[in-house]
């Protein structure tokens, strides 16, 4: 580890630097598309985006140099985190996929099915066993949340075609 960090080699953290730089450039370019009304103040609405975009570009460069010089970002620690393990792509995809599916389906199928999908998908993706139990808990929880928030607290959640009768 020590050796590879001493020699000036590229690193996965440089992808982060690159993303920062791309974002910075995109903001600077995007700023030119902001319309400046005639009544504009002394400082126009393009000024701040340009400054922030520029700062991001400078920081991207500094970050790249920092990493090159062997100062690596330390991943967040925690009791539930195993830093020695490689990234668990499958769990990440399962959890992320469940969330995206929830986001896309919520307005169509309603909170209770979409919430069940999110909770069950995430729990199973994170390694919960006994799918029937997981599904049961997911359904009860989503159902309870719907009742509590929609009925009890008056917060809007879509019922969806299956549970229209509840509202």
């Amino acid at each position, binding site marked *: 580890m020590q050796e590879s960090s001493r020699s000036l080699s590229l690193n996965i953290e440089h992808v982060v630097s690159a993303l920062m730089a791309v974002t910075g450039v995109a903001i600077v370019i995007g700023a030119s598309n902001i319309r400046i009304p005639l009544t504009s103040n002394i400082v126009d609405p393009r000024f701040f985006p340009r400054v922030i975009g520029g700062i991001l570009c400078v920081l991207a460069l500094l970050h790249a140099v920092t990493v090159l010089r062997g100062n690596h970002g330390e991943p967040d620690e*925690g009791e539930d985190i195993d830093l020695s393990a490689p990234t668990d792509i499958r769990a990440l995809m399962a959890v992320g996929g469940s969330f995206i599916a929830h986001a896309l389906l919520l307005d169509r199928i309603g909170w209770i099915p979409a919430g069940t999908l999110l909770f069950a998908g995430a729990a199973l993706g994170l390694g919960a066993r006994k799918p029937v139990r997981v599904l049961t808990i997911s359904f009860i929880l989503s159902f309870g949340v719907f009742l509590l928030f929609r009925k009890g607290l008056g917060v809007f959640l879509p019922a969806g075609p299956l549970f229209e009768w509840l509202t």
Partner: protein
Amino acid sequence: MSALPDLLDGFRVAATPANLGWAFVGVTLGTGVGVLPGIGPAMTVALLLPITLKLGPISAFIMFAGIYYGGMYGGSTTSILLKTPGESASMITSLEGNKMARSGRAAQALATAAIGSFVAGTLATGLLVFAAPTVANWAVQFGPAEFFLIVLLAFLTVSSVLGSSRIRGISALAVGLAIGLIGIDSQTGQARFTMGIPQLFDGADTVIVAVGVFAVGEALWVASRLSKSEQQLIPVGRAWMSKSDWSRSWRPWLRGTVLGFPFGAMPAGGAEIPTFLSYAMEKRLTKHPEEFGHGAIEGVAGPEAANNAAAAGVLVPLLTLGLPTSSTAAVMLAAFQQYGLQPGPLLFETNGDLVWGLIASLFIGNTMLLVLNLPLAPLWAKLLRIPRPYLYAGILLFGALGGYAANGSGIDLLILFAIGLIGLGMRRFGFPIAPLVIGAILGPMCEEQYRRALAIGQGKHSVFLEGPICKALVGLLVVVVLAPFVASVGKRRQRSHVQPGTNGDTLAT
């Protein structure tokens, strides 16, 4: 002393049966959610926001006061029993408290944390009662130039004093500022970076930013690296302390309060520094130095008191200047904005009953927490047994609920997920989270004040040097910018004498 009648009015507002009920719900939920592993106070407040959505503002803020302190209490329980600091400010508690718990003194660690939190929270809230109106009266005279400089000062300290890497801290801030750009420009009404999505015209909702980086980001991060090993849980009885524990605890409580409040109250504050200072101080003053590092009760009592006193202190800049200096305060600001309230010097005049009701219920909530937590510690500890897949699935479910409930639109959930991905990347590559949240929330204010200041100064930057307050703030800014360089040059010089070639780029605090 004019604050006392106001405070009494506040108690009149907060002590109605209904509002006492909300305060109770708040402290219970705050503790219950805050005690869950991996959930810090900021995430607690963010996840519980939707519950208050349809309440009247006064009841909502009374509940928030309870959630705020409850989340802190819950967090310390987790740190002691599981060594999972939900935020950096309870790191010390987890260090020394967990050692105590492992050596069979969990009950005493929980007791000194709970009673210390109560003592420090009550004293510091008392200080808040007098400090807040004073600062507000003073802040009424601030113009845009002063506000801009204060925001800048908060930005710099939040992003560069905390954390181990200043580049990463300032980068997190810049990303937050970039997120803050999205939406209609308040000065000219022009859309900026909205990509044609109408939901973005009002800007990226602060609740969504907070829930995204905290809840979704944390769940994704844990998913990518979930530890397969079984958790070691420490059995715990009713929290209690012996006479010698009391005599070893009360001085650290008071010292922690004295350290914590001013640090929290400064517009550059935060709770991390005073907890570290308190730990160092107790370590030097103790009669049992051999116990430090192995579970010394002073090492829990002092930092925990400092943490809670700072949490009360943080409310001074939040309420009087609208300036959040911790991520929890940033989420609280989002809650204020949800009700169309802008904290600032005028809040005490325009919404006096609300502010004083909030402060009064901090006292009430704190007392409820003490009564609730000493006997119920074993019950809360049971929550730590919740299987991790269910815990993080639940965090996602309630995160989605919060993201959707804010505006009732499915697109917000996709934005929430995108911000969650940023949160995942930041955790993976060692970027601190707090500067992003604070940048996203304060960015628009920073820009607005800058533009207004320059309009007043007719385009000349000399407007930022007019008046004594501006000059003092600019001086402070220069110190904050230069201090780390001076320190690192000094260190490098020292180091080059002692052991050349050691890694000198890590600029520690």
